[in-house]
């Protein structure tokens, strides 16, 4: 068992453990911190899968921007861990069983995924910035421009929703 396999499996174990801790920890701040760890372990998977550009984007956008936004809102709202009302136990058991059934049915559906026709030695340079940038600005230039419009409208929407109403201020 080589280094790459050990790395892949241990990153998988870390991401699953921290994802479970996100769901089951009582304090929302702990959940956010565990989710940051999950995102870092997924970023590590991107490195060993030769997706270097997406590794950097994952660190900057997810672990940096999005999780800081979550942490910021969580601290702004000043929630303590014990204020969240719990669902009753029957409902909890039902939701765990439902998640498990989803997992089992998807696994059953994906049986035999291992013997797919994959190329023997795929190009390992596709994840570099040069290659992705050329594709982004040639084939995907219209979606790229549309995503800038989406960002602008999202920004305007966030400000509009977040600001206090005029009658509240007076």
């Amino acid at each position, binding site marked *: 068992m080589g280094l*790459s396999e050990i*790395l*892949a*499996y241990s990153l*998988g174990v870390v*991401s*699953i453990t921290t*994802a479970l801790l*996100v*769901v089951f920890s009582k304090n929302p701040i702990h*959940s*956010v911190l565990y*989710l940051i760890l999950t995102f870092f372990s997924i970023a590590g998977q*991107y490195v*060993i*899968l*030769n997706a270097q550009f*997406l590794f950097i*984007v994952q660190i900057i*956008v*997810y672990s940096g*921007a*999005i999780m800081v936004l*979550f942490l910021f*809102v969580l601290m*702004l*709202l000043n929630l303590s861990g014990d*204020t*969240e*009302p719990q*669902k009753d136990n029957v409902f909890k058991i*039902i*939701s*765990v069983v439902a*998640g*498990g059934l*989803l997992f089992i049915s*998807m*696994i059953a559906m*994906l049986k035999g995924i*291992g013997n*797919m026709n*994959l*190329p023997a030695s*795929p*190009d*390992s340079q*596709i*994840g570099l910035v040069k*290659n992705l940038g050329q*594709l982004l600005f040639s084939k*995907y230039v219209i*979606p790229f421009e549309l*995503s800038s419009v*989406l*960002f602008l409208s*999202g920004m305007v929407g*966030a400000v509009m*929703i*977040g600001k206090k109403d005029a009658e509240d201020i007076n």
Partner: protein
Amino acid sequence: MTEVIKHVDISYYVYLSVLLFSIGVMGVLLRRNAIILFMCIELMLNSVNLLFVAFSSYMGDANGQLFVFFIMVVAAAEVAVGLAILVMMYRNTKSVDVSLLDKLKN
């Protein structure tokens, strides 16, 4: 780092992504705190991203990685608007419990 593609089977990444996605679904069903629901949705998006990147690398096709890039763009916009809605909800109800939002039922 090309050895991972040679030594680890693609089914490992498929099962890992499915497991992470199921954990996200379970969290959405289990919790009532709206912020945690959002985080579980992010977890589901990330599991799909991981599967996209895995298939892209194993196939040697860069289109999947660009798709992940666009998913990240949409997720960032979604989080900005969603957290604004959440702050608004907290301002009106003094709570982030999603089960309080049942006005449509009556």
